[in-house]
């Protein structure tokens, strides 16, 4: 079931992504409304993180395009924030918590300028919002998993964007952090920010998100949670019926075939 948003803030059009010729996302096509908290949900290997990376232009796409605010990403980067998976960085890196949050200002600073006192004040403010102000001077290796995630979110806040893409922010965090994050997301949505979250827990997905993108290599369903997040669509996404799709994918890889003819 595909429900289109009325005034879409994100439009993903016929997106296909392949790793070494093997498609991991097939013809994904959907829109999201402004001010929503959207969850990208699906089983392991469904291509959830890949979808986020494709939207952020971090992986090459085999076909299709993405538009944000009706424009290509390059034109609106300063309104877009990306929160990578926590495990994607080396937390033994010799920087402080404040240094990491200040990275959220780098987009506005450009390549050469250094953060000003105003940037520093803003970064501290963002840390405060995540309940991490006391940790500003700490080296990042002294943080717990939940604290690391809070620092990443503080960095995202420092970007002052309008749409946020978060890759598994709830993975491996403590219950208190999970609650802190979800209430932050609700506050942000109230301020008309749009948040797109990769999430793998079906149980909490229903209460966390008001819009759901159900994915398993292809798009299974997208729309308001109450409307599209049904036992039937979940069964479609998690049931084993996609075997054929992955077999064709394997074949494309083996025969070194392009996924599109062009």
């Amino acid at each position, binding site marked *: 079931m595909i429900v289109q948003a009325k005034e879409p803030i994100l439009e993903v059009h016929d997106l296909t992504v392949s790793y070494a010729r093997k498609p991991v996302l097939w013809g994904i096509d959907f829109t999201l409304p402004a001010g929503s908290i959207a969850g990208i949900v699906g089983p392991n290997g469904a291509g959830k993180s890949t979808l986020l990376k494709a939207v952020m232009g971090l992986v090459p796409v085999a076909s299709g395009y993405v538009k944000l605010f009706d424009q290509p990403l390059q034109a609106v980067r300063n309104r877009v924030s990306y929160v990578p998976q926590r495990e994607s960085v080396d937390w033994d890196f010799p920087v402080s918590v404040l240094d990491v949050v200040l990275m959220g200002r780098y987009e506005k600073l450009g*390549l050469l300028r250094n953060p000003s006192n105003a940037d520093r004040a803003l970064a501290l403010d963002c840390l405060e919002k995540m309940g991490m102000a006391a940790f500003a001077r700490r080296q990042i290796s002294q943080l717990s998993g939940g604290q690391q995630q809070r620092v990443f979110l503080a960095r995202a806040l420092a970007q002052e964007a309008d749409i946020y893409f978060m890759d598994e922010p709830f993975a491996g965090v403590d219950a208190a952090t999970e609650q802190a994050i979800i209430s932050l997301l609700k506050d942000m949505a109230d301020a008309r920010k749009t948040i797109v979250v990769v999430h793998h827990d079906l149980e909490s997905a229903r209460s966390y998100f008001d819009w759901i993108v159900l994915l398993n290599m292809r798009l299974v369903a997208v729309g308001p949670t109450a409307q599209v997040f049904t036992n039937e669509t979940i069964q479609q996404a998690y049931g084993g019926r996609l075997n054929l799709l992955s077999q064709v994918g394997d074949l494309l890889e083996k025969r070194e075939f392009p996924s599109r003819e062009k």
Partner: protein
Amino acid sequence: MENVINFFSFEDPNVRYVVLGTVLLSASAAMVGSFILLQKKALIGDAVAHSVLPGICAAFLFSGTKDIVWMLFGAFITGWLALVGIDFVTKYSKIKKDAAIGLVLSVFFGVGIVLMTYIQQSGNAAQSGLDNFIFGKAAALIADDLLIFSILAMIILITISLFFKTFTLIAFDRPFAEAIGYPVHRLDLLLTSLTVLAVVTGITAVGVVLMAAMLITPPAAARYWTDNIRHMVLISVLFGAFAGLSAAFVSYVAPAMPTGPWMVVASSGIAFFSFFLAPKRGMLPKLYRQHANRQVIAEENLLKRFYHLGEARSDFTGSHVEHTLIGPDNFGSTKSRSVLRRLRRKGWVTGHDKRWQLTDEGHAKAAKVVRLHRLWELYLTKYMAIAADHVHDDAETIEHILTPELERELEQQLGYPDRDPHDTVIPKV
């Protein structure tokens, strides 16, 4: 001694050239190397260093001179080709990056050696000294070279300073850097070019083979001393400069000594020193901390023994015979006796004629350890559903590390209890 004075007075212009040259080159290499290390590209530095050799030889064959500008030009081109080659092999074959680096490195260095051998056999008079480029000879530095090296070192210094925050971001979180629109690939090229530059500045004095060590060793050592990237780069530069200076000194005192290897020996010495002695991460401080922990455990256990004996006869003030405290005379009791003496030095026990008793301070201390032990046992049975006969061993360790803050929290959560799970009294302090 005379040598030392001559050297450090810097009156001899040759000494000045050599010192300035080696310090400049090792400092700039250490600076670039910091970012290579943090980007986990140490092997790339090695590959670049080896790959400039064929470029130097080809430049010599082409120009017929050892003019430094030509050498740099040639070195730059093959250093670059090697990097492109590594990327190409990784992208278009099933060979993994580490193998690709090894492959490209040996092919380029092999070609370099072939060319060098050819040049040496050709009987060209201008070639003498070209082999210095392999292991380096600081004494071969002349004023003209030095001018060029200074310029290159300044270029490296200024570029790294300008792009400091950008390189830091890429090393820490590359996807984020890409997502905010930084031209990550071009910045990679920039850092690689700086690496080639740093290697090239070192070819005369250190030689291509060992230049990789000057890129990586100082920053690796610096990482042991700090958790702040700005300090790390600074310390790395100082280490590099110190290694450069000491090597220049050695080859001044003993002219037969090649500078490059000595530079590497000096910086490895610094690295070993850091590895063993750096305050937080070094090995010896770690061992010392463990030793100190064991001492605390032994002291507190003995204090506890006093307390238990006192508890048994409902009198904490009397003295105890030594062997009831530490057991009969045998090998183990020598150690316990030294613990007793340590306790006496701290004023927690007094004793003579093999009889010992707690002081007031010692009693408070002992009661506190017992108290923490029993509080923890209670916590385990109450909140972690562990059976009362299983909690003792765990509490044996935890009693030594609980802080006053945690103690207060424990008390509060347990509702200020009087008795532990074995129904013995929890002492109040």
